[in-house]
Each structure stands twice: as structure tokens, then as C-alpha cells.
């Protein structure tokens, strides 16, 4: 114990004297000492006091099975302790990525796959940067395409969430409402949203309206299903308690049912967002004058695989960012949630 604590004090001084002098010593020491203590306590500590244990055998404690990240924290800089072990652990992944890109580059370089089928990653990066400031060959900058797609997806998604979540919650809470809405919903559900595209184009033309309608349909269904299931799974104990304390049915719905459905609602939102993004690409492939789907379609027509691949990767990247944002939003919501 004493041995270790001395060492850690020295380390703190060595690393950043200012910080160490500002902090009370106990605070500086504790996080480093805690883990070895826990690891040894059940074996060596007989009367429950760690001091005696460490006095009895100070040497195995200092040299014993202490995790490498923690002992090294005593003397080595942050990047070495923090990033180096991670790098070592991820070396296989890194290697596989590098091999993948080299293979891709090589396949193109040696002409195994022709330039009208595949372009090397180096060219993809070049075209990506070029496309940010150039409108050829499809008539708009990459960011303009991306913004138009993102705007549409978010518009349709928001509308679907605003309508779908309350509908699902009401259907889950009030049986009468369920009996009325369920048959209609069950008729719409099995038809994939993509199958609505021709009808939507016939009805609303090829503009924003048709696409927003299709995206709305696509993200509507998961929202309804998940909020329905979520509120159905509300813990009956909670609702009974609320009722005993004199809450009206609507209050219970609002204060107990809805909050307890939030995790499921977020699952539904994530599915919705995926569906919205996928369907949007399909709609843009078929009929659009802007958007990432339109861009890759133009790339195909002009036999420009570089444009297609840049578009695909952008679509994937933006999709990943959207769902990442939703996960962040969920954390914000769920941490303030009391019921579980």
C-alpha cells in the first residue's frame, strides 16, 4: 500500500506538478489504487482491512497481476497508456482494412476489373473532393445533392413520427381505438413503401410532395408498431398504483404509459429512419432531378463508376450519422426517464 501510494505520488508530480498540487492528495491517489485493491482483497485480506493485507505481502502487490494500463499510468504519457493498448488490440482490424484497400487498389491498378466497373479508392477520394466544388456531370454539387436528400428524409421522418407515435400509443392504450384503426393499418402494412412509388408519382408528380409522401409511409409503419408494443408492455403495477391514487385513465396514459414506452419508441424511430433513408434513395433513383439517389443514377447512365461509388459511400455515411444522432437523442431522453 505504502509502496504503491508513494509511487503514484511521484508519478503525479512527474506528470503535471501543477495539477497534483492543486488537487487534494487523496483524490489523486484513489483511482489508481482502487483496482489492485479489489483484485487482491478477497484472497489476502482476512479481517476486511486492506492495510493489513498489504503489509503482510507488499511485494506481490507491486509486481502482481496489476493491469498494465494502470501501472503504466504512473509514469508514461497519456497517448501511450490510452491509445497504444487500443492500437495493439485493434491491430488485426487495422491490418484487414489496409489489406482490403490495397486489394481494391490493386484490382483496379492491374486492370482485373475494368475502369467502367470499378475505380480505385484513391480516385474515389479525389472525385469526392472534386465533386464538392464541381457540378459536372450531373448538374449539382455533392453537398447540394446531400442537403436535398437529407432535408426530404428528415421532413418525411418527422411527419411520420408526429403522426405515427401518437397513433400507436392511442391504439395500444384504448382498445376501441385499436379496433377501429387496426384493420386499416393491417391493410397498408404488408405493402412495401417502395411499391407506393408509382402511385405517388402518378398522384403527386415527381417533385418534393411525392417523395415526402413515400418517406412518410415508409417511416410511419415502424413508428406505429413500436409505440403500440411499447405502451402495451407498460408494467401493470405502475398503472394500478396510479389508478389507486386517483389518476384518471388519460392521466395514467400520459404520465405512466407514454414514458414507459419511450425505449420502444426510440427503437421504432431508428427503424423508421433506416426505412426513410432507404426509400428515399429508391424514390430518387426512379424520379428526381436532385439528390444522392439521382446522382448515382446519373453516374450509372454516364458509365461513371467513380460518381456512383462516391454517392453510395456518401449515402452510407450520412445514414450512419443520422442514426448516430438518434442514438444521442435517445440517451438524452432515457437518462431523464424514471420508469423502467
Amino acid at each position: 500500500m505504502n509502496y504503491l501510494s508513494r509511487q503514484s505520488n511521484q508519478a503525479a508530480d512527474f506528470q503535471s506538478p501543477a495539477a497534483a498540487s492543486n488537487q487534494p492528495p487523496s483524490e489523486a491517489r484513489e483511482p489508481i489504487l482502487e483496482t489492485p485493491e479489489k483484485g487482491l482483497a478477497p484472497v489476502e485480506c482476512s479481517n476486511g482491512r486492506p492495510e493489513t493485507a498489504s503489509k503482510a505481502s507488499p511485494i506481490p502487490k507491486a509486481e502482481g497481476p496489476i493491469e498494465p494500463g494502470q501501472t503504466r499510468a504512473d509514469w508514461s504519457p497519456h497517448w501511450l497508456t490510452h491509445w497504444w493498448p487500443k492500437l495493439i488490440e485493434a491491430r488485426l482490424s487495422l491490418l484487414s482494412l489496409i489489406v482490403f484497400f490495397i486489394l481494391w487498389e490493386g484490382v483496379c491498378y492491374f486492370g482485373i476489373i475494368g475502369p467502367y466497373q470499378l475505380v480505385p479508392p484513391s480516385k474515389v477520394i479525389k472525385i469526392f473532393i472534386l465533386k464538392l466544388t464541381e457540378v459536372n456531370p450531373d448538374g449539382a454539387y455533392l453537398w447540394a445533392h446531400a442537403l436535398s436528400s437529407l432535408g426530404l428524409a428528415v421532413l418525411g421522418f418527422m411527419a411520420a413520427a408526429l403522426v405515427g407515435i401518437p397513433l400507436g400509443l392511442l391504439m395500444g392504450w384504448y382498445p376501441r381505438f385499436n379496433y377501429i384503426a387496426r384493420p386499416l393499418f393491417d391493410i397498408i402494412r404488408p405493402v412495401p413503401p417502395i411499391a407506393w412509388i408509382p402511385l405517388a408519382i402518378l398522384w403527386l408528380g415527381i417533385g418534393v410532395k411525392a417523395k415526402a409522401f413515400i418517406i412518410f409511409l415508409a417511416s410511419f409503419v415502424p413508428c406505429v408498431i413500436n409505440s403500440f408494443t411499447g405502451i402495451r408492455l407498460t408494467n401493470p403495477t405502475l398503472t394500478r398504483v396510479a389508478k389507486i391514487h386517483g389518476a384518471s385513465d388519460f392521466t395514467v396514459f400520459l404520465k405512466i404509459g407514454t414514458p414507459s414506452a419511450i425505449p420502444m419508441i426510440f427503437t421504432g424511430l431508428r427503424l423508421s429512419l433506416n426505412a426513410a433513408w432507404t426509400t428515399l434513395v429508391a424514390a430518387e433513383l426512379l424520379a428526381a432531378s436532385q439528390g444522392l439517389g439521382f446522382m448515382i443514377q446519373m453516374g450509372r447512365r454516364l458509365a461513371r463508376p467513380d460518381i456512383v461509388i462516391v454517392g453510395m459511400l456518401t449515402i452510407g455515411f450520412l445514414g450512419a450519422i443520422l442514426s448516430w444522432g438518434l442514438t444521442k437523442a435517445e440517451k438524452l431522453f432515457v437518462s431523464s426517464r424514471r420508469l423502467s
Partner: protein
Amino acid sequence: MKFKSQFYPLFLGSLSLSAALLLWIIVNQMAGPRFLPNPLKVFEEIVRLFKTPLSGRTLIEHVIFSLRRVMAAYGLAIVTGLPLGLMMGWNATCRKIVMPIFEIFRPIPPIAWIPIAILWLGVAEGSKIYICYVGAFIILVLNSFTGTRYVDPLLIQAAKVFGASKKRLFLAVAVPAALPSIFAGLQNGMSMAWMCVLAAELVGGREGVGFIIIQGMNLDRPEMILAGMVVIGVLGTVLAAFLRLLEKLICPWRRQLV
């Protein structure tokens, strides 16, 4: 009282359905059949498609074309995706090698593969099967991966205590424990493949149910689109029901919640 409670849902449901039908007919009357044909005409169109061929094929043949593509892609995805996902879940080395590459392609929607698939494989069967394959493959890998990765450690420890070999641990503990997740993947994968075949046929096809609805759009015949949508919905429902049946037969020990 009992009579009422038994038939009440039915009554309300039929009420809402007939209200929707009425709305349909009113819209049809007000906006004209070019906008929304009446339900009877849609039914007649389905019958007509059964009898008279559309671009050389009757409805049955179109359906068979679509189903064949889905089945080919689905079979391929099962053969390649399930083993890969299981390996990734079970073997850390395999996971570390495959995961980063997989993560690059995972967020790309399968439909975004359509243009490049056409560039690679032409507009014939190849590109359509490939797109459905990508859609089903990603879902199957993810589900079998999470299934084997998050097997209850208690089960594995118990099997180890009883002296199970690594192979037996995998085959007798991990795979059965992952089956519910795998089946969820099979169902989602099927609906994804079904959606992808539609998209592929919409973008470039000369046969299949997706072709019927896009042809309806090109010919400005909404009744044909609606007829195609009905057929698509029915087929999708049948496929999903078939998979649920299969799940009940193979994996009866845990039912999915939804």
C-alpha cells in the same frame, strides 16, 4: 353482454373498413378514375392480368419471376451470411478481421447498390439477384452475429463445467441459443429481399411484379398499379407467414415478442 363483447371489435373493424371503402369511392367519384379507380375496377384488373399477358407474360409468370429472384438471393444469403455471422460472433479473431470491412458497407442501403450492380452485372437477372442478396445478407450476418455474441454466459459456463469441447460448445449451446435471433433475421431478411426485388424491378426490369406497377405508371393506368400493389402485399404476407410457420417448427422454445 357476452355477445356484445365478442363481436364489438369485429363490428368496429368492419365499420372502419367500410368507411375507408366509402371514402375510396367518394374520392373516385370526385377526382375521377384517372386519379383513383374504384375497387371493383382494381379487382377486374387483377383478373385481367391473370388471363391476358402483359408484355408477353401473365400475372402468374411475373410472380414466378420475382419469387425466383428472391429465392435465389435468399438462398445465397443464407449459405454465406449465416456462417459468416456465426463465425464473427463466436471467434474474436474473425470478428476483428471482418467487422471493419463489414461496417463500411453496412450503412449503405441495398437499394443504393442498384446502379453499381447494373454497371457490374447488366440489367439481366444478375444485378437483381445481387441487390436482393446484399439486402438479405447484411441482415442475416447482423442477426446471427448478435445471436452468438450475446449468448447467456451462464449457459456457456455450465457447458464448460460439464466438459464440453469447443466444437460442441458452439454446435450444442451457442447456435441453439442464437436461433431466435437468427430467425428474426431470416424474417427481416426475407422482407428486405422482397422489397429489394421490387426496387430492382422498378428501376430496370422487363418482368416481375415490380415491372407491373412501373408499367402501370408509364401507361398511366392507376388500376394496374393498385392491382400490382395488392398482389405484392398478398405475396409478402404469404412469405412472412411461411417463415413464421418454419420458426414454429424449428425453434419452438422461444417466441418473439412482436
